[in-house]
């Protein structure tokens, strides 16, 4: 039989985060013997991925893995693809409320753990005391909102964090310029601010840059989710003590294994299925066909940053 063909469509081209996912796909397919290609639109706008999906259906690709730019704008084209037997995998983020339109979602970590883990990372640095703020991406980003809700809950419920006060949530739209001005406004509006949590790669880098520029690195701590290559400078010069992330690479690797397995019939796409991924160990398919690559976030700091390159 022909080898399984997989196409991965990231949010947009030129985004380094997705390059690691692509690397994972490539390595996975090398060992599995599947065909892998990747195509991407120029901008991460809601509709820009649609023509790419249609073209892949036409090409007769077996699996379309995609990091969707919109939770719902792609529903119809996905339905059509699946009608023609194409498997649709949502990678890195899911489509909340529209799970029925894709076959499975490959997510990086257990999202319920992200919020508390970030709060703890910051708390440790500021002595669990003082005003803190969150710099998010867009108000509409589903994963962001899940994490922010979890952060709020942790701050309220866990007595350990009782003296930490969340003063505001700002939205930088994953745009460096806007994230910068928003962070500057945070510093201006809250002179006593002790820390900023930015669970988005663009935001955390912008926040770090602002704090460095304002020479407030010792007063205001920045934590968040970032990629090592973007944050290396700030770790090395001490602006940022630590940040977290999962391994995007593993998502690609896992997605490739899962896709080939489902296509071959060796993996059943239903809750409770357990399968083995070389290098990752045993993975379980959860409710709604959600699959997570790892349980906990990796924390990056001076000690280990040199070991990563993505």
């Amino acid at each position: 039989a022909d080898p399984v063909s997989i196409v991965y469509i990231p949010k947009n081209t030129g985004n380094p985060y997705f390059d690691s996912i692509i690397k994972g796909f490539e390595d996975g397919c090398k060992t599995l013997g599947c065909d892998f290609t990747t195509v991407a639109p120029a901008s991460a706008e809601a509709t820009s991925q649609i023509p790419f999906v249609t073209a892949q259906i036409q090409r007769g690709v077996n699996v379309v893995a995609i990091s969707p730019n919109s939770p719902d704008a792609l529903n119809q084209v996905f339905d059509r693809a699946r009608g023609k037997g194409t498997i649709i995998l949502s990678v890195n983020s899911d489509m909340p409320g529209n799970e029925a339109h894709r076959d499975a979602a490959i997510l990086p970590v257990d999202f319920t753990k992200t919020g508390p883990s970030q709060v703890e990372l910051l708390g440790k640095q500021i002595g669990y005391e003082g005003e803190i703020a969150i710099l998010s991406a867009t108000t509409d980003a589903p994963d962001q909102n899940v994490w922010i809700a979890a952060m709020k809950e942790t701050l309220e419920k866990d007595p350990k964090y009782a003296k930490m006060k969340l003063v505001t949530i700002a939205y930088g739209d994953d745009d460096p310029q806007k994230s910068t001005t928003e962070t500057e406004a945070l510093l201006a509006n809250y002179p006593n601010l002790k820390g900023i949590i930015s669970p988005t790669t663009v935001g955390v880098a912008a926040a770090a840059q602002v704090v460095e520029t304002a020479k407030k690195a010792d007063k205001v701590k920045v934590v968040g989710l970032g990629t090592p290559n973007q944050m290396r400078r700030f770790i090395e010069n001490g602006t940022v003590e630590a940040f977290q992330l999962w391994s995007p690479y593993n998502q690609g690797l896992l997605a490739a294994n899962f896709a080939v397995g489902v296509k071959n019939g060796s993996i059943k796409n239903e809750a409770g299925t357990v399968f083995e991924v070389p290098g990752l160990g045993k993975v379980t398919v959860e409710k709604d066909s959600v699959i997570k690559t790892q349980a906990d976030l990796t924390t990056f700091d001076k000690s280990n940053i040199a070991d990563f390159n993505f």
Partner: protein
Amino acid sequence: MTSVDKTPAAPGRVIVREAAAPRPRWQVWLIRPEVVTLLLLVVASVVATRLSPFFADLGFILESSTYYIEFAIVALVLTIVIISGEIDLSPAAQMALSACLFGTAFKAGAPIPVAIGVSLLSGLVMGLFNGALVTILRLPSIIVTIGTLILYRGLAQVLAGDKSISGFPGWFVGIDYRMVGIVPVPVLIFIAASILLGLFLGITIYGRQIYQIGTSEIAAIHAGIRVRRIKMGLFIASGLTSSIAGLMVASRLGSVRYDLASGGELTMVLIVMLGGTYIFGGRGSILGTFLAAWLLVIIATGMTVANIAINAQLTVMGLLLIVSIIATNAIYARSQR
């Protein structure tokens, strides 16, 4: 006045400067921008077929065309606006704002027909606003519509935030998957609109007057043509068409967001220019725009299905726009005496 020793000039006697001989008929027919567009269309189809074995499939091309057809429909009206000597760069933003208004009205509990009404009304008001700035305050349309393009999209953002609004009823959603034969409904709308607007421009007195206004606005005013009224009408038509296109996008996607159709102004201008409409007004045709829309579909779809990276696509589109205006300009300069 003294008498002069010369015989009075009689009509028959003097040297008469005759009209220049007209260009041969075949030149008039063959050397025109639409022919260039048609040639490009043929070339693009052949190249696309060569590039990817998956391309030559009418059903696929028609399906893919639905992603560009909304812009193409607005481009038809934009063609007329440009022939009249103006330009409208705000339709894509108008599409977004009217679609967001539709979504917001729907979310607020309005029945779909009412929400559609709201959206169409907003198209009318936006067109009216553009038109008023251009025809009453006499501001240049090119910069006015850059201003309103930012304003309208900004208002869409204020209205909808960055949330996408969805949950429209099933009958409203999926216009691009309703087929007549193998032809999706939006494509049918485009074809019908092309025929209607082509006839409007070609055989009605308004079409005639629009060409006259674009050729020389001052001469048109002197000939008693109601220039302002016609231009105002065109801007309103552009607004209305944009809101219809916005609704079509809402139906196709089943959701709306403020960034809907973002960057669409470039695509629309590209289509009109590729169709050989003269940027300075007075010349151009719906046929050209019709062909150019298909040219765009073929090129974009061909490159996408051949997995050609987006960078090459942007480069090709930019080059194509520049080359096409140079060609159009050259052809018109040639026939201009």
